[in-house]
C-alpha cells in the first residue's frame, strides 16, 4: 500500500477572540478536503468557530535541544520582564 494523501495539521479557534490552537493532524487530498475532514473529526460538538489546515510539510520547526541559543535572551536579559523593576511602596499600580 502506498500513501497518496498529504498530512495536514489542524488548528481550531474555539471562540472569537481566542488564538487558533493545534488539535491534531489528518490526511487529506487538498486543503478544501482537509477542512471538511477537520469539521467531521474535530468539531462534532461545536468546538470551533474557525479551522486552519496547514500542510505538515510546510511547517518549519525549531528544536528545543539543538538550538538553546534560540531562547537564551530570555535568561540574560532580565530587564525584558516587568518584574525586573522595583517600585516604591507607595505606588500601588503601574
Amino acid at each position, binding site marked *: *500500500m502506498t500513501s*497518496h*494523501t498529504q498530512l495536514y495539521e489542524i488548528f481550531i479557534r474555539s471562540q472569537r477572540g481566542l488564538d487558533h490552537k493545534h488539535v491534531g*493532524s489528518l490526511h487529506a487530498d*487538498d486543503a478544501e478536503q482537509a477542512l471538511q475532514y477537520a469539521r467531521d*473529526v474535530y468539531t*462534532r*460538538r461545536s468546538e470551533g468557530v474557525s479551522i486552519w489546515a496547514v500542510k505538515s510539510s510546510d511547517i518549519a520547526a525549531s*528544536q528545543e*535541544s539543538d538550538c538553546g541559543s534560540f531562547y537564551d535572551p530570555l535568561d540574560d536579559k532580565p530587564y525584558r520582564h516587568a518584574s525586573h523593576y522595583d517600585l516604591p511602596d507607595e505606588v500601588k499600580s503601574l
Partner: protein
Amino acid sequence: MDQAEEEKVFQERVDAEEKIEPKDWMPDKYRKTLIRQISQHAHSEVIGMQPEGNWLTRAPTLHRKAVLLAKVQDEGGHGLYLYSAAETMGVSREEMIDDLHEERAKYASIFNYPTLTWSDIGAIGWLVDSAAIVNQISLQRTSYGPYARAMVRICKEESFHQRQGYNIMMTLMRGSDEQKAMAQDSVDRFWWPVLMMFGPHDSDSVHSAQNMKWKIKRQSNDDLRQKFIDQTVEQANAIGITLPDPDLKWNEERGHYDFGEIDWEEFRRSMSGGGPCSRLRLAHHRQVHEEGEWVREAMRVYENKKRSNQEAA
C-alpha cells in the same frame, strides 16, 4: 551526546513529568512500545464500531438510533485521533492497517463478542465504555505528548457514551419482565470479559515495570480494574442489575470490593484469535477497505491531474 547520556536526559524529563514530544530523542523500545500500544488502541476504536453498528438499523426508536449513530461516529473519530498520534512516531497509516489485516496487530478482545440483543448495546455503552474511560483517564497523564492530548480529547467525548448505555439499561430495568431479563442476560455475558479488558494481573504482566518507569502506564492493571469495579457496583444496584459474581462484596478493611477469580483461559482464547467473532471483524474490515479502493484510486487520479494542471499553468 552518546546513547547513555541521551537516555539519562530522557528519563530525567519523564521523571520531571515533562511530556516527550515527537522530535525528542527516545529509546527505541519506548517508540516501539508506544507504536504498538497506540495503534492497538486505534484499531480497537475502529473495530469496536462493528458490534454496535450491528444494531443501528434495529434500534427501537428513532431517537435511540440517532444517539447510537452519534456514538459510533465518535468511535471512528477516536480511531483517527489515535492513528494520527501513532503517525507522529514515524509509522504510516497504511502500515498500521496492513498490520491489522495481516494479524500482526491486535485490538481489544472485548469486540470479538457478538451483540445478540438490543440490551447488549446498553451493556457495551455502560460497561465497556466505562472500563475504557477508567483506563483512558489514567492515560491522560501518559508521558508521550500526542498520546496524552488525544486521550484528553477522547475522554471529553466518552462521558456521553457511558451515560447513553446506562440509560438504555435503566429503561429496560423499568420495563417488562422480559426486558429486565434481557438486560440482566447482557450483563451476565459481558461482565467478565469487561474485567479482562484491564489485562493480566500485575504479577503476570510482562512489561509493566518498564512501562511504569517510562510513565507510558500510570496505574497498574489491577488498580484500574479495582477502580472500575468499585464505581460500577453502585450503578448496578441503583437499577436492580445483579453483577454475576457471588464473591463480589464490600471489604471494609481494604475500602474496596472483593471479587472472584477471572477465567484467564477464556481471555487467552479470545486474544489468540479464538473469540467468537474475530474472523468476522477482520473479514469485514478487510472487505470495507478493499471496497473503498476505488475512492482512493479516484483521489489519486484527481490529485495527479490537478498537479499536472498546476505545472502547465
